[in-house]
């Protein structure tokens, strides 16, 4: 303890009472000014904190809602349903593709069978022409032989009639074959379109959709990770708010310390006054020295309070800045969770919609083509059915040809008696009949092949196109429903994110503005420094020894000064400044096991 060793006369004080009052009242006034200043500032911080807490809570709730929409069970279920829908669509398209392949194969067989009819048809045309010629020739030859036993005109008429019939039927057959050929080729083109290019596009769309959904699953994993980020950010916001609350309480802590200083300074003035009136038990010069040293102690207490208060305010400012950062980070985390950027404003969901739409479009297109090909196949089947009766007609030709050939043989026997020309005719007819039979067989087989293929087309068939159409409508309806949900979820998330952007920007701005408005620590520092300087100055004018303190220990004002201490920090400073001899040793609170669950600052009784 250093000072000017100017001990005066025992009865005289170095300073007058007025001077003491003046010196000691100045810090008192400063400290009163400080109380008002700090209370207003801390109340302002408290009010702002309440507002920040409310608004950040709303942003956190929006983030939780984004999380729920994107990563919650409903979202998972939605993706699963969409995956199932894609597989249903894939299965439907596969069925179309498979039946199309079978149809194409059968139609090719029909086309091959149709091609095989060309030769017999051409042959029958020749046969027809030959029959006509033979018919004419037969009439001429028979006119030279008048024989009441034979009816030469029957044969020639029979020949002409058969030729005419065959010709007519062949034309019908030729027309029907041509028509069937056209229908078959058209149907084959439809099936080729279905099972080549359209099928490839369908495959591509389905695979793309599968890829998109795999990415959705991957996104969900990422979303779950981002959920952890969100949780951490939420914890950080809580931490910042808690730190501000905790630091604001240092207003009360330091307020109490400062009040103790104020009371002590006041009691020093009272003691000086009593001493001067002659009421004290210690000489005034000793009292002055001790009071001066007491002022040094109070100055140290004020410096400690200044540090605690200013550090608390700096922590408040720091925590407010951290809070602003955390609020902005929360929105960034929510955006990352949604896979959204500010440029496109969309979310993960947006990638799903085009995939589903593409598959649905392919489905419709395939159905339309399938309907056309089904129509074409039906026409082929119908045309093939029409040909069935032709087989019977053709077989009848063969039978008639046989009869004519027999008649011709009989005629030729009759005629041979008179000439050989009819014999040649009869031979020709026999040959024609034989060829006709061969060609009849060929036509019959060919037509039977065609009708067999047509039957298998009917078997393969796509069933009732109305049912197929209903399937597609159901798929379309499911797809539309899911897309509607998807769009709704996307819209909801985008709206939430936009609002979060706006709210967080505004909140962060307000928080930073508040933090920048907080200067109470600067002002408090000036005031407390000023007050402490006055007290240090007082102390600097006197010197004290441990004897002085021993003399005054019994004086109530000094006992009260120590009893006034409610905090270990005050006692520590007392011991440091005045030494161990003076302070009553008051034990710090013992830590009990029971409070560990709630914190070291809690005692349960």
């Amino acid at each position, binding site marked *: 303890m250093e000072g000017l060793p100017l001990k005066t006369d025992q009865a005289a004080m170095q300073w007058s009472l007025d001077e003491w009052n003046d010196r000691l009242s100045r810090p008192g006034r400063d400290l009163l000014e400080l109380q008002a200043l700090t*209370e207003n500032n801390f*109340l302002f911080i*408290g009010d702002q904190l309440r507002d920040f807490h409310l608004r950040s809570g709303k942003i956190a709730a929006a983030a939780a809602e984004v999380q729920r929409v994107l990563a919650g069970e409903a979202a998972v279920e939605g993706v699963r349903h969409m995956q199932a829908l894609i597989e249903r669509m894939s299965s439907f398209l596969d069925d179309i593709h498979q039946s199309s392949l079978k149809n194409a194969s059968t139609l090719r067989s029909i086309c091959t069978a149709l091609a095989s009819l060309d030769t017999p048809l051409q042959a029958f045309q020749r046969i027809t022409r030959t029959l006509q010629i033979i018919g004419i020739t037969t009439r001429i030859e028979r006119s030279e032989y008048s024989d009441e036993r034979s009816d030469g005109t029957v044969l020639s008429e029979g020949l002409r009639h058969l030729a005419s019939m065959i010709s007519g039927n062949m034309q019908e057959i030729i027309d029907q074959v041509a028509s069937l050929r056209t229908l078959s080729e058209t149907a084959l083109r439809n099936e080729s379109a279905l099972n080549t290019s359209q099928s490839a596009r369908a495959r591509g769309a389905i695979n793309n959709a599968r890829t998109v959904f795999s990415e959705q699953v991957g996104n969900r994993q990422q979303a779950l990770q981002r959920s952890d980020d969100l949780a951490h950010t939420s914890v950080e916001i809580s931490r910042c708010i808690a730190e501000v*609350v*905790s630091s604001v309480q240092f207003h009360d802590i330091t307020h109490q310390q400062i009040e103790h200083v104020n009371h002590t300074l006041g009691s020093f003035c009272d003691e000086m006054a009593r001493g001067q009136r002659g009421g004290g038990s210690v000489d005034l010069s000793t009292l002055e020295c001790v009071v001066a040293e007491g002022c040094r102690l109070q100055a140290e207490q004020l410096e400690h309070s200044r540090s605690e208060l200013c550090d608390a305010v700096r922590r408040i400012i720091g925590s407010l800045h951290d809070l602003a950062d955390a609020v902005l980070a929360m929105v960034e985390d929510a955006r990352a969770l949604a896979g959204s950027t500010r440029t496109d404003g969309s979310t993960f969901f947006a990638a799903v919609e085009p995939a589903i739409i593409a598959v649905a479009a392919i489905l419709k297109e395939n159905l339309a083509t399938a309907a056309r090909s089904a129509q074409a196949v039906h026409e082929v089947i119908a045309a093939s059915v029409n040909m069935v009766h032709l087989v019977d007609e053709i077989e009848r030709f063969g039978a008639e040809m046989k009869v004519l050939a027999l008649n011709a043989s009989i005629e030729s026997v009759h005629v041979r008696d008179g000439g050989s020309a009819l014999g040649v005719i009869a031979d020709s007819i026999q040959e024609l009949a034989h060829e006709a039979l061969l060609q009849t067989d060929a036509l019959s087989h060919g037509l039977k092949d065609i009708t067999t293929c047509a039957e298998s087309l009917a078997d393969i068939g796509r069933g009732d196109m109305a049912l197929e159409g209903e399937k597609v409508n159901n798929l379309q309806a499911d797809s539309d429903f899911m897309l509607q949900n998807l769009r709704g979820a996307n819209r909801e998330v985008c709206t939430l994110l936009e609002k979060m952007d706006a709210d967080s920007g505004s909140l962060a701005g307000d928080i930073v503005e508040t933090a920048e408005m907080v200067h109470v620590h600067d002002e408090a520092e000036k005031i407390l420094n000023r007050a402490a300087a006055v007290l240090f100055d007082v102390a600097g004018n006197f010197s004290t020894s441990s004897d002085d303190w021993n003399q005054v220990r019994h004086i109530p004002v000094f006992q009260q000064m120590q009893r006034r201490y*409610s905090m270990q920090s005050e006692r520590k400073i007392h011991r440091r400044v005045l030494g161990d001899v003076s302070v009553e040793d*008051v034990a710090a609170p*013992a830590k009990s096991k029971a409070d560990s669950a709630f914190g070291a600052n809690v005692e349960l009784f």
Partner: protein
Amino acid sequence: MLLAETDLPQSRILVADDSLVARRMVRFALQGLHCKIVEVEDGLAAWEQVRSDDVSLLITDLYMPKMDGIELIRKLRSTDDGIDMPIILLTNATCEEQEREARQAGVSLFIRKPFQPEQLAELVRQVLC
């Protein structure tokens, strides 16, 4: 939510502290409990409030004008209404002597400032539930 929420609408908490800043912080910490909070500035007002209204929990400071926290607790414990009332002493004080005094007076729980808001809310929730 950033501070955990619990509904305790039937509970009435009395907060006695001469510091408006302190009362605000206690109210802030307990807002998630959705209970009624009444504030008074001194021990005497707290005493009158308890006698006139049904109070579920008293949170009091130690050093207050007119009647300090210890005297308030002693008086309450001597009444029928106050004998079983949960009482939390929320204080800046940090010494065993004050804790002993508080314990002898009948306090339920002693919290030294600064407290964390979740900490106070959880303690109050446990006391009231």
